């Protein structure tokens, strides 16, 4: 990995918020304090699908300490219309309805009412005293159930809310020509992003009519847009200050509790804080879709893929907009296939409305495709990585959804996998008689997004700069952004003071998500730094009465005159006043990222337990700004993928209740469950970005479930077609042999 042309890019400085976060001083959503604070509790539906017949709040209102109670009726009853809240269009009634149910509840956990009281205990007790009469209705819990003729409907519209199709060439004809065809069906269970910090928000409906919100969110501008829309206020009347955030992974983009807290604040005249408990998080936020996927792949005798077909039915949850679209875009993205037919279905089911989870939709799809590729490799007796290389997407390959790839690193990642010592290391003997070992590989893709970001940099007289931006720092991005500014300015990164600010203080900035933050907000910081240099160049020109001032490596020069950045910064007041640079970007292209996994497992054939012996994650980062945090993203995504693969799922009772909504029973990987996660960063620079950055946060979660399925197959000769591949399911599959 070369960092030759750069001084700061590629180094590993300490993060700017490190001291705050290791001392417990950093303020997360529930840490925020304000005078007069009331505590809110939300009452949620016990039924997966029911009509709300009546809501009686009188007993709750009499509970000591209760100050206010709200229901859906407390929203301004503006007529339904289509709203565009930055991520596509949707009926206002849907957005409003998910925040507080009206008429019907559509999933267990659906919010129905909320109480504000002087203590969190009082609020919780009082909420239980709200009497809601329900008439339960039949429920549907999986995509096939939701699609079945005569299935119980959640809304007026059909349960299949979108049908997406992509096609190139003629897949049916090409399958006839194929020397070998493999077709398999797969099921994946609902899983949750599993962020450790539950949703938390404080709202103050101030006496001047402005609503102020302090919340843990991936998108403060999304919160502003949604809250102002639901409360029928101009956006200028809502100010959102993002606190530090304890994980999101896409699940803290939707808005759940902020509008409710605002309504309670208006009613009570005091600030109100709502914090979800862990059960609310599972039942009342946005897990990722469970899915049913069928993949058919046909190859010629040399292993060239000539035909591919995919059917993807993803659960949308209670409202339309599950992630089947991205699933259709990613399902065959790694391969150059001339004849492809893809059908994607977004299906309503009586579960929480799904939200994005790190490369949303792609992991489900890759589990299917990469398992089928592995099958083909075995039947053709071609090394699985070699087979992938033979068909790998390159610059100019046309994706099934139409566009051609620009410069991408699929081949480079596959070659790095092949060359990695892990791939040729001996598996070693099983540790005991009832165990078998195997190795599996998989590759995955995520396209990454652009979206707008703004940045303002002001120069201090001591040669340091203040950098303000609007991207919640979920994993060290204030530093990766500061590094990009420091590189341009030619100053140490410790001399850049980054701050993540509220929606009043910075120009519109898109969500921290979609692998866009280091990419787009870093780009804005780069451009703002260039603006600073332009302005300071003018000052140097004034000082030297010259018109040929050049700037390089932190020094301004003209003839024999020179000033460092810091020296010139000391002269700004006398040359005209402060220097403030700014930039807004809205990049078109993000440059997708490919990621690969090599995984070794040992499976106990009696218990079905899978032990991961060795795990290697390889990913194209374009340019790694701060390699430690790029590695961290790869390791974190890998372990989430491991949990998704081997154990995590929503256990649903037949009547649609989640029965494992605790962190004991929704069992995410602990430090004891995973081996060291080795990483290798590949750099195929993204030509669009000033430093070649590709977003790196997401693609790494895409290959692990398939790699583990392939490793299990290598070990046991069984093809697991359902996620999670937990011990009982492996034992059951073995028993079928």
């Amino acid at each position, binding site marked *: 990995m070369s960092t030759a042309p750069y001084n700061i890019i590629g180094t590993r400085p300490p993060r700017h918020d490190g001291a705050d976060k290791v001392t*417990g001083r950093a303020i997360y959503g529930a840490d925020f304090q304000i005078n007069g604070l009331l505590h809110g509790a939300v009452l949620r539906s016990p039924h997966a699908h029911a009509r709300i017949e009546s809501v009686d709040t009188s007993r709750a209102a009499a509970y000591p300490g209760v100050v206010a109670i709200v229901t859906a009726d407390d929203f301004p009853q503006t007529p339904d219309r289509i709203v565009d809240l930055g991520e596509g269009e949707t009926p206002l009634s849907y957005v409003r309805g998910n925040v507080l149910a009206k008429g019907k509840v559509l999933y267990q956990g659906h919010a129905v009412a909320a109480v504000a009281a002087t203590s969190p205990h009082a609020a919780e007790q009082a909420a239980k005293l709200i009497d809601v009469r329900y008439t339960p209705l039949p429920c549907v819990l999986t995509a096939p159930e939701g699609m079945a003729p005569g299935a119980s409907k959640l809304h007026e519209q059909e349960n299949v809310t979108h049908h997406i199709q992509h096609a190139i060439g003629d897949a049916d004809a090409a399958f006839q020509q194929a020397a070998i065809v493999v077709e398999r069906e797969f099921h994946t269970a609902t899983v949750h992003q599993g962020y450790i*910090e539950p949703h938390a928000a404080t709202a103050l409906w101030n006496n001047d009519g402005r609503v102020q919100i302090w919340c843990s969110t991936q998108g403060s501008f999304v919160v502003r847009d949604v809250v102002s829309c639901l409360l029928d206020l101009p956006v200028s009347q809502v100010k959102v200050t993002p606190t530090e955030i304890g994980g999101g992974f896409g699940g803290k983009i939707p808005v759940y509790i902020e509008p409710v807290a605002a309504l309670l604040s208006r009613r009570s005249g005091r600030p109100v804080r709502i914090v979800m408990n862990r059960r609310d998080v599972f039942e009342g936020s946005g897990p990722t879709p469970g899915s049913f996927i069928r993949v058919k792949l046909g190859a010629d005798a040399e292993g060239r893929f000539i035909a591919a077909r995919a059917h993807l039915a993803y659960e949308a949850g209670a409202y339309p907009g599950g992630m089947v679209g991205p699933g259709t875009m990613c399902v065959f993205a790694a391969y150059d296939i001339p004849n492809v037919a893809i059908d994607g279905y977004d299906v309503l089911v009586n579960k929480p409305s799904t939200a994005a989870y790190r490369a949303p939709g792609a992991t489900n799809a890759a589990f299917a495709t990469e398992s089928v590729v592995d099958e083909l490799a075995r039947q053709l007796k071609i090394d699985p990585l070699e087979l992938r290389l033979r068909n790998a997407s390159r610059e100019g390959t046309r994706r099934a959804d139409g566009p051609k790839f620009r410069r991408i690193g699929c081949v480079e990642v596959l070659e790095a996998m092949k060359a990695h010592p892990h791939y040729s290391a001996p598996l070693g003997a099983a540790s005991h008689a009832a165990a078998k070992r195997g190795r599996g590989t998989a590759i995955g893709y995520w396209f990454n997004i652009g979206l707008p970001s703004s940045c303002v940099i002001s120069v201090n007289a001591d040669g340091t700069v203040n950098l303000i931006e609007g991207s919640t720092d979920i994993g060290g991005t204030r530093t990766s952004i500061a590094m990009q500014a420091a590189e341009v300015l030619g100053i140490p990164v410790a001399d850049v003071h980054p701050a993540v600010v509220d929606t009043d203080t910075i120009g519109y900035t898109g969500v921290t998500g979609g692998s866009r933050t280091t990419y787009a907000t870093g780009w804005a910081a780069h451009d703002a730094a260039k603006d600073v240099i332009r302005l300071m160049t003018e000052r140097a020109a004034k000082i030297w009465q010259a018109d040929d001032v050049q700037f390089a490596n932190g020094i301004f020069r003209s003839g024999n005159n020179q000033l460092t950045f810091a020296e010139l910064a000391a002269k700004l007041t006398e040359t005209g006043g402060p220097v403030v640079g700014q930039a807004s970007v809205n990049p078109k292209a993000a440059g997708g990222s490919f990621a690969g996994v090599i995984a070794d497992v040992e499976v106990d054939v009696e218990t079905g337990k899978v032990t991961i012996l060795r795990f290697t994650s390889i990913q194209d980062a374009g340019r790694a700004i701060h390699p430690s945090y790029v590695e961290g993203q790869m390791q974190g995504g890998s372990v989430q993928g491991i949990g998704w693969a081997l154990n995590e799922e929503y256990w649903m009772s037949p009547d649609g209740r989640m029965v494992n909504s605790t962190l004991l029973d929704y069992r995410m990987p602990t430090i004891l469950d995973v081996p060291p996660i080795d990483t290798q960063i590949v750099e195929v620079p993204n030509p669009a970005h000033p430093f070649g950055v590709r977003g790196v946060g997401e693609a790494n979660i895409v290959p692990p479930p398939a790699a583990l399925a392939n490793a299990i197959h290598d070990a046991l000769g069984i093809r697991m077609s359902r996620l999670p591949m937990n011990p009982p399911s492996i034992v059951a599959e073995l028993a079928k042999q």
Partner: protein
Amino acid sequence: MKTYVSMTCNGEPVEFLAEPRQTLLECLRDTLHLTGAKEGCGDGNCGSCCVMLDGELVTSCLVLGVEAQGRTVTTVEGLAAGSGLHPLQKAFIDEAALQCGYCTPGFLVAARALLDQEPAPSEERIRLWLANNLCRCTGYDKIIRAVQSAARQMKETAQ
């Protein structure tokens, strides 16, 4: 009806009123304004609320505030001496062992409790000890490196 509680917290005597139903975590956060310990689950399964109670590692969401009467509590706020950083805190920053940082206070206290007992733990021992601290961001890898690095550092300083 609130109960008067007096205890030692991070080396200082503190006193507060607690309802019997309030957990120690609540009292630390809401009454004493020590918001370092976090709630992730409320039922002892994530470790974000870890503190030390009379030198023993506990999940403070499963301890009642009134149980702390007369006892000694150490939170993440008590790790650093003065305005410096404890070697564990420094190692977490240097090794990039935190991403969102939410689980970090719990891990720091838990790791401190481990190193208090075992100054040179093996990787296996570290993993076993920290198995009740969930992290969703880092994949744990750099956390192990940080604990190992701090252990080495503390051993050097002690010599």
